[in-house]
């Protein structure tokens, strides 16, 4: 699950704690909306220390951010984060070697809506983003914005260039210590930072390493039966009826895969 002994030692306390797994309802909600937000309960000073340490870096270390700021390992080993990752990716998930510290400086304009990588979408949960915010993020500080349900949409980013705002976009104006776990394919963007404060977002990727053979969350077949009805009837965002019918099918595929089916 974790890459090196050094990193494991740093997060020893967190790893010793029992991971807090998601419920059926939370997993269903992730399938429908494509994200799940958790909050680590470290003291504010801990997040502030991470924020300050990043601020002292002479340059963005790219994939080397974990070496530069080792306490980040504790964030991703926290029981609520690890529990969510186990629930969505299985007990042997792996932290990807690619990670990045996104620095949204004051005065920066918004990004355009995009999906990461190229258009090879499989509609399974094989990779998630873990976006950690070491500072409070106000709406003025250029929060990340996501569009629920779009992890099922296979859209070339240049086809999104004429979009600006969606009625049902979700803004991550969140307190320090929040980790937003999103499906890799969800449409997202950093918005404009109109404040006078730098906004950091640590984006780490986590991969599934094995096919699910059983639910890896806090699964209760009775609750699951109730929750999975939402796959058919709940709207993530307003869209055409024909899109919604297809979305329902894709949700069921994702859910069945997570349950351990084919």
């Amino acid at each position, binding site marked *: 699950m974790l890459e090196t002994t050094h990193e494991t030692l740093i997060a020893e306390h967190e790893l010793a704690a029992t991971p807090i797994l998601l419920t059926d309802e939370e997993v269903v909600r992730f399938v429908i909306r494509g994200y799940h937000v958790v909050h680590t309960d470290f003291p504010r000073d801990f997040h502030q220390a991470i924020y300050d340490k990043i601020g002292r870096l002479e340059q963005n270390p790219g994939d080397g951010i974990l070496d530069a700021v080792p306490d980040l390992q504790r964030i991703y080993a926290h029981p609520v984060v690890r529990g969510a990752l186990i629930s969505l990716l299985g007990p042997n998930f792996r932290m990807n070697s690619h990670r990045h510290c996104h620095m949204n400086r004051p005065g920066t304009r918004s990004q355009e809506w995009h999906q990461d990588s190229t258009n090879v979408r499989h509609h399974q949960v094989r990779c998630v983003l873990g976006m950690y915010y070491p500072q409070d993020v106000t709406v003025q500080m250029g929060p990340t914005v996501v569009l629920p349900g779009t992890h099922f949409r296979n859209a070339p980013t240049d086809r999104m260039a004429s979009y600006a705002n969606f009625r049902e976009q979700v803004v991550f104006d969140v307190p320090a210590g929040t980790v937003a776990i999103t499906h890799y394919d969800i449409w997202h963007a950093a*918005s404009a930072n109109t404040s006078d404060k730098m906004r950091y977002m640590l984006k780490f990727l986590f991969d599934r390493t094995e096919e699910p053979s059983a639910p890896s969350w806090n699964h209760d077949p009775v609750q699951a039966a109730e929750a999975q009805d939402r796959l058919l009837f709940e709207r993530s965002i307003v869209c055409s009826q024909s899109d919604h019918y297809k979305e329902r099918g894709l949700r069921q595929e994702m859910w069945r895969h997570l349950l351990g089916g084919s």
Partner: protein
Amino acid sequence: MPKKKLQRLLYLHAATPSIRSRVIGMALHEPVRNSITELNPLPQEWPYATVHDAILDEWRVVQFPVQLAPFDDREIDILGYEFILEKFEEYDA
């Protein structure tokens, strides 16, 4: 200062190709140098619930969405149907 009429552009993304379906996305481009149109995380006003509402407010549709659906029964891609509307208004030259 002299005035001249310039074209405002309004992209409305509607749930279906019908001008009476719900607007789900919007991008307004003002004919002002250095103006920007971008993702705004602040709560916003949505002046038009439908494309029809915008027409009643004197916006003129200049491009309708193409209705040639891919007829793929599994995959979904871009969101909404894009209408482009224009309105000419006077601006300082």
